[in-house]
């Protein structure tokens, strides 16, 4: 009997998620993406305000949403992606409205971006833009050229043309383990609307992805940074900020790994990550102080330069490092910017179909 009880415990343990314990005031619990803030931002904030920050990381919007869904997450600031995540989370009542009278630096924010965000967050009540980047490809230039001298380096064909990607199988291909970041480019490569939720379109994209599947070594959303930098893989489909981190880590390591991050000429998905305060945040005052602190153009510019992403702060660009400011992946030219698209949320049935197809693609079942 006892043995079967232990078994129950195993199944049940999956359901119990550990939440950080609420702490006394003068504390702030931040839950952010990995590699998504300048290393000195939190110490500078702690020094300026005397608030002790506890900092926690995730590598997928799904993880964040799972924790917030359970309620009482204990976090004061989270960084969801605007669509579809933050948009539907506002509707489900995850976040509290921000008291803008306490945000003296609000005026620095990009007005155009705020106007775009109003479609998801009327009145910009709940969200403040943090960083914006693109879902792109990164590759080990030397290895790719050695294998395929005439590789279509600027095209989606690198990843989504089964014949091309098959050539890179041996040196290692990694694709994000997130159907929401992989179906749109597959649809685009097929000449369909990248934002399509039609079952027949999703199935066509899945058929294409099944063809390239045998060339993919790994589906993952954070390991590829180190793997690409170390030369363990030669082609990755991922977040531009992560791929840029990989590129710079490889340069710093000085082992001759030379990485390029490229926006495919066919177009790519631009996403906006936002700062939000959960409704049950234990320290909302400290959260507002932090949001105001990182809205200083000099402060967010440090993060922008360090994590290689455009910030939502209109006045930050002059403070960004010259190298980052000149990087066409971080700040694309207006012509390239026009090719970038955004995706919208899906209804539960489309989500379920997409997840199911994704499992089928990955496992063959």
């Amino acid at each position: 009997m006892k043995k079967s009880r232990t078994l129950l415990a195993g199944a049940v343990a999956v359901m119990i998620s550990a939440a950080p314990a609420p702490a006394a005031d003068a504390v702030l619990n931040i839950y952010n993406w990995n590699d998504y803030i300048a290393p000195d931002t939190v110490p500078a904030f702690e020094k300026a305000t005397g608030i002790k920050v506890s900092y926690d990381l995730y590598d997928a919007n799904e993880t964040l949403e799972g924790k917030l869904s359970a309620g009482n997450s204990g976090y004061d600031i989270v960084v969801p992606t605007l669509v579809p995540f933050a948009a539907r989370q506002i509707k489900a009542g995850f976040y509290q409205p921000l008291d803008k009278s306490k945000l003296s630096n609000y005026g620095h924010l990009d007005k155009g971006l705020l106007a775009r965000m109003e479609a998801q967050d009327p009145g910009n009540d709940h969200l403040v833009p943090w960083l914006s980047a693109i879902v792109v490809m990164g590759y080990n230039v030397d290895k790719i050229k050695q294998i395929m001298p005439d590789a279509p380096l600027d095209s989606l064909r690198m990843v989504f043309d089964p014949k091309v990607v098959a050539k890179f199988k041996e040196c290692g291909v990694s694709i994000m383990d997130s159907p929401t970041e992989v179906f749109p480019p597959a649809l685009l490569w097929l000449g369909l609307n990248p934002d399509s939720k039609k079952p027949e379109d999703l199935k066509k994209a899945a058929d294409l992805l099944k063809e390239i599947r045998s060339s993919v070594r790994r589906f993952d959303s954070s390991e590829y940074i180190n793997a690409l930098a170390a030369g363990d893989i030669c082609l990755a489909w991922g977040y531009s900020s992560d791929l840029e981190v990989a590129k710079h880590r490889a340069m710093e390591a000085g082992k001759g790994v030379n990485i390029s991050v490229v926006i495919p000429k066919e177009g790519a998905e631009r996403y906006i990550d936002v700062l939000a305060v959960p409704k049950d945040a234990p320290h909302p005052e400290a959260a507002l102080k932090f949001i105001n602190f990182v809205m200083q153009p000099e402060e967010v510019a440090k993060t922008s330069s360090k994590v290689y992403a455009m910030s939502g702060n209109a006045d930050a660009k002059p403070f960004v490092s010259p190298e980052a400011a000149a990087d066409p992946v971080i700040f694309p030219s207006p012509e390239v910017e026009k090719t970038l698209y955004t995706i919208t949320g899906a209804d539960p049935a489309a989500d379920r179909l997409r997840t199911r197809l994704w499992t089928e693609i990955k496992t063959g079942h």
Partner: protein
Amino acid sequence: MRGLSEERKRALGRFLVIAIPFLWLGALFLAPFLIVAKISLSSAAVAIPPYEPLISWADDGALVLTLHVGNYKLIFSDPIYLIAYASSLRNAAVTVIFTLLLGFPLAYFIATRDQKWRAPLLLLVMLPFWTSFLIRVYAWIGILKPNGVINGALLWLGVIEKPLVILNNNFAVIVGMVYGYLPFMVLPLYAHLEKMDWSLLEAASDLGAKPFRVFRKVTLPLAAPGIVAGSLLVFIPAVGEYIVPALLGGPDTLTIGATLWNEFFSNRDWPVASTVAVALVALLVGPLLALQHHRTKGARP
């Protein structure tokens, strides 16, 4: 009179000693399981928590209990769940076999050492527990990856020309799981082998049995309870293993842990996720109870 009250005291003591662990199991294992079972009969919603309540008030004031048995129909209508169960069970079974093959000689070796060596040797078996499991699994990435220790050594020695693909596939998952669960097999085996009456082996040899026959007819039956205990101790957590397949597995590694993740996080469907968990328990408890029943019956003369 005095003797009777002693008797009562003893009974009360016995009751308390037994009641506390049962209370613990009830509060921390049974109650959460019932909550999971309850969620499995609900339907998903965009809210906190993300599912509909089972009991609600209708407009006319009637108390309505809504049970969605459709979740159970879903997991039996789509083969993906059964395939995931099957591959998790298979991985767990393979892990049991290899931990047994590696663990039995190890436990036998330790149990037959001189008394003063046993404690240090056992300590070596348990030593890895002092490091986080996650770190130890990550270490295997460093060992198995294309630029890793094994491939580096083999390339340097000239045994292979290009790196072997021994990471991100089922091979790596089994390596990681056998590594992780080996102590759980060794410890119960050691406990049984250590208290074995070795003079029985001598008697068998004296009566002319060859070493293999002694092992098969004497050692193995005496160690059988240890083998069963160790196998269950490895098998049960191995079925639900999530970390090892997530880190060392490849894209085609389909496990029940990964399926649960998908339901929870990608589909945001806690009811179906709970259904998968409840069905797993049902799938395993039945055979285990049957085994237990068989064993207790077999133990009686």
